[in-house]
């Protein structure tokens, strides 16, 4: 009477992709660090019919530093993101976001690929990937395709990842010296917390003008989002109090938060505005006279 679960711990990537192809109708759950799937199974939110355990695949555990971008395997753990100097130097926001994940046990097991595939709007590193314009390389037995991270999600907990595909590589353009990073997670407590609001941003200021700004937001919409309207308003403008004030209002049209178990839509709206204004004010202060 008990349900049979198809479980596979492949020896290599080819075997993994073959299993995905064979079980495409069963909606295979891909198990990496298990930090999302195990609690979900335990609390009976999901009951997978097929599980593919990729934790042991060395092909998915790589890190390459290129001239303009960093290539990460999906099994890169949060601990590695926190500790590896290549990541810390080239994409410091990834390190900061990883530091705010759960606690040490979760950081040791939780992975970059898992955070992306789980597709939660509150996924901690997702706003970082959004502002870095990361590119995801998806692979199936039939071949590879590249998808812009910012086009990856199609709705709440939904993505364009097909049942026979897995995330093979994450390509993250590196941060340039003139770019100023910003990260703020507002969680339910200081550790072991899921975001109420998370903001990642990168800005470039020259001569008092915001040459470029990118803002990624978590937990304030069905998916992680870029604050496009706010970015358009800010880009190319002089960073003054009036602009900061206006940006705080415009960002309201970039988000559509809800009331849930962790917080309220109202609170998320106000703190998103406050955090953005705080970032821009600090930025203005730091660039006085530049």
């Amino acid at each position, binding site marked *: *009477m*008990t349900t049979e679960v198809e479980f596979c711990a492949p020896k290599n990537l080819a075997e993994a992709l073959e299993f995905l192809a064979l079980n495409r109708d069963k909606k295979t759950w891909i198990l990496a660090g298990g930090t999302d799937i195990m*609690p979900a199974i*335990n*609390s009976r939110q999901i009951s997978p019919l097929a599980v593919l355990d990729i934790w042991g695949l060395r092909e998915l555990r790589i890190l390459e530093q290129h001239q303009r971008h960093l290539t990460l395997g999906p099994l890169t753990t949060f601990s590695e993101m926190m500790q590896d100097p290549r990541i810390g130097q080239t994409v410091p926001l990834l390190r900061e976001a990883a530091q705010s994940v759960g*606690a040490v046990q979760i950081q040791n097991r939780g992975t970059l690929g898992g955070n992306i595939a789980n597709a939660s709007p509150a996924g901690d590193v997702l706003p970082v990937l959004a502002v870095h314009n990361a590119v995801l390389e998806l692979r199936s037995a039939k071949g590879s395709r590249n998808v812009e991270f910012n086009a990856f999600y199609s709705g709440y907990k939904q993505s364009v990842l097909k049942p026979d595909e897995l995330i093979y590589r994450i390509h993250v353009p590196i941060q340039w010296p003139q770019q100023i990073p910003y990260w*703020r997670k*507002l969680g*339910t*407590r*200081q*550790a*072991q917390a*899921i975001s109420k609001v998370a903001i990642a941003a990168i800005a470039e200021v020259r001569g008092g003008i915001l040459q470029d700004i990118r803002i990624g937001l978590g937990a304030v919409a069905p998916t992680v989002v870029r604050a496009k309207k706010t970015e358009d308003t800010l880009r190319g403008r002089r960073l003054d109090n009036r602009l900061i004030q206006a940006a705080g209002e415009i960002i309201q049209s970039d988000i559509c938060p809800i009331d849930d*178990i*962790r*917080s*309220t839509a*109202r*609170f998320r709206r*106000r*703190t998103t505005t*406050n*955090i953005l*204004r*705080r970032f821009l004010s600090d930025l203005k202060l730091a660039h006085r006279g530049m």
Partner: protein
Amino acid sequence: MSIGVNVPRKDGQSKVNGQAAYVDDLSFDGMLYGVTLRSQIPHGKIRAIQFDPKFDWSSVVVVDHSDIPGQNIVTLIQRDQPFLAAQLIRHVNEPILLIAATSRKKAMEARTRIEIIVDELPSVTNLEKAATGVRLYGEDNLFKEIHIEKGDLPRGFAEADYIVERTYKTGLQEQMYIEPQGVIAVPGKDRISIYGSLQCPHYVVKALLPLLSFSHPDQVQVIQMVTGGGFGGKEEYPNLLAGHAALLAMKSECPVKMVYDRAEDILATTKRHPSIIRHKTGLKSDGTLTALAIEIDFDGGAYATLSEVVLSRGCIHAAGPYRCENIDIVGRAWATNNPPNGAFRGFGAPQTCFALERQIDLVAKTLGIDPLEVRRRNAMEPGDSTATGQVLTESVATHKCLEQAVKASDYIRKRSEYSKLLPKARIRRGIGLSLFFHGSGFTGDGENRIRGRAGLQVTPDGFIEILTSSTDIGQGTETIFAQMVAEELGIPVDLCRNAGVDTNRVPDSGPTVASRTCMIVGDLVRSAAAQLREDLIKWLAELENCNAEQITLVGGCFLLSGQRVASFQDLAKRACSEGGPASASKTYVQPEGLEWDEKTYQGQAYPVFSWGCDVAEVEIDLDTYEISVTRFTAAQDVGKAIHPVMVMGQIEGGSLQAIGYATMEEVLQKNGWIENHRMTNCLIPTALDAPAFETHIIEEPFSGGPFGAKGVGELPTDGGAPAVAAAIDHATGQRFDEIPVTPEKIELALNP
């Protein structure tokens, strides 16, 4: 010297190296796993129970109310709660059926194949509507109403220059012990053994005898396994769970293990009572309190459990450690269709203490003076009397605690400095304080009704075994009992060990609750040791043909006129093998002059009180409204710290629970359903949320306690929440009368 020394914990090594055996570590041949099928509605009638005919029901054991050999009533105070709902469902997640199988998974699978068909009835899940809604209990939905009167209230208000009124609210709080509830029942011939994670083994015996239709207490053997915390949550709930496992074990004739997962534990077990408390206070313009009128409502949930005694302690502590001649306290515990609430460290006092301390701050605000001054002016001193008319004769440390905490925290300077920051700073700072007390031991003549017993037994190898039913649930009971025996006998702590808690072997020392273990049971253990010493000296005097007065016991050796005649251990061995005095036991005797009237709530509510003052400091980020409790100074009087490090652990742990209660612990309940039933969303503070603690142990000894000791277990949970709320008020310039004060509530208050 063993008292006041930080000896290694008796349970320390095995817990650190992983050898400590918790109930889920234990297994028996042929053991089955039991699960519970629960109701999905807050109120209704069971019309039918349908079993899926496609399932092989012979592969599992199912128990319903008709399988109960004795009474379907959880024996506690009232006789209202069934082990298994028969016809009427009175709350969500009420147990209806039990299923056991060879694996937990299989039992859970079977559970999904059963459907309970119900006719839903109107329900009451809101405390504010408990009186007006559906009739659930007795004539008026009241589990208990208590009235405490002192002096002449109308006169008190007539004498007042000001009268201030306010309503306060507190929410549900989950104990969140690290180890969920669990038991194993092992059936025998006309008997049953229960291995469990629990606080009160003899409660389980008393609950199981009528359930199983047993007549002799020895037929139910209860053995406490190493227990991963209780905080009151394992006071009465294990009665129900042990009953369930026992029913499955009796029917299947196999050992049955039932261990809840976190979700089931949060959903089904008792929590701290939510409260609504109304204060009306009369005061003179110099700050003197002339009248305190307090009205207290607790949500008891669907069954009476311990609500009436929780209410009782809440009421007795409601007027706090303040001098006031005219007091009127009315308390009510209401029946609703929420899951039953029960014991949680503090036992009603954290709610009433929160309300009172916030009211005292309001008094200060009304008069335009510092909250510290109101407390200085009204704090009790020896000779003053409490709300129940109990005149305090000794061990009163209000002012000591207050002044120590104020000085150590630099309260006065910070209070004025932070006030100046208020208008412009983005990070706001605040500091607040609270003054509080907690009665040690059972209320009134409760200890006399329990008549706790404790014993000592000399082992053949010359060690002293300590026999009590007081459970070590992490608070250090095993260690302090050994220290007390060692001190009394003048022997090393290593020679003293605990017998473990097995009701077939140890005497009933009463439950491990009510801040009573150290003071009440500890004193029984200490006096048994004194008895044993006296007996051994007498016996040695007979052997040596001398007067007992010539023999002393010093440094582990018996001396006859100053000359060493035997080591303690050698004489103890001899006593054991040669029929000498090899044991001692003591039974509680009520002190002379203790008077308590349960009907009028007049008299000596507790043998003595412990006292405390907390000062909390907070920072609030006005961009995110995040609350950070940065520093917490506690000065708490425990009479005598038997083991100072463990006392500090009690103070810091209890304070952190109170900080969580004030800022983030919120059990979200809607129509009787708990919505946040996981550790990820039913929040408690983590180590990173903890403030820097500065703990001062005050020792104002009590003549009736062992070595001067009083209770420490619950005191620290009383004062933290109002101190934190006061600090948040100070930081934001808003008043918060309801806890938890979350960032969302601060945002609302600051942006109305």
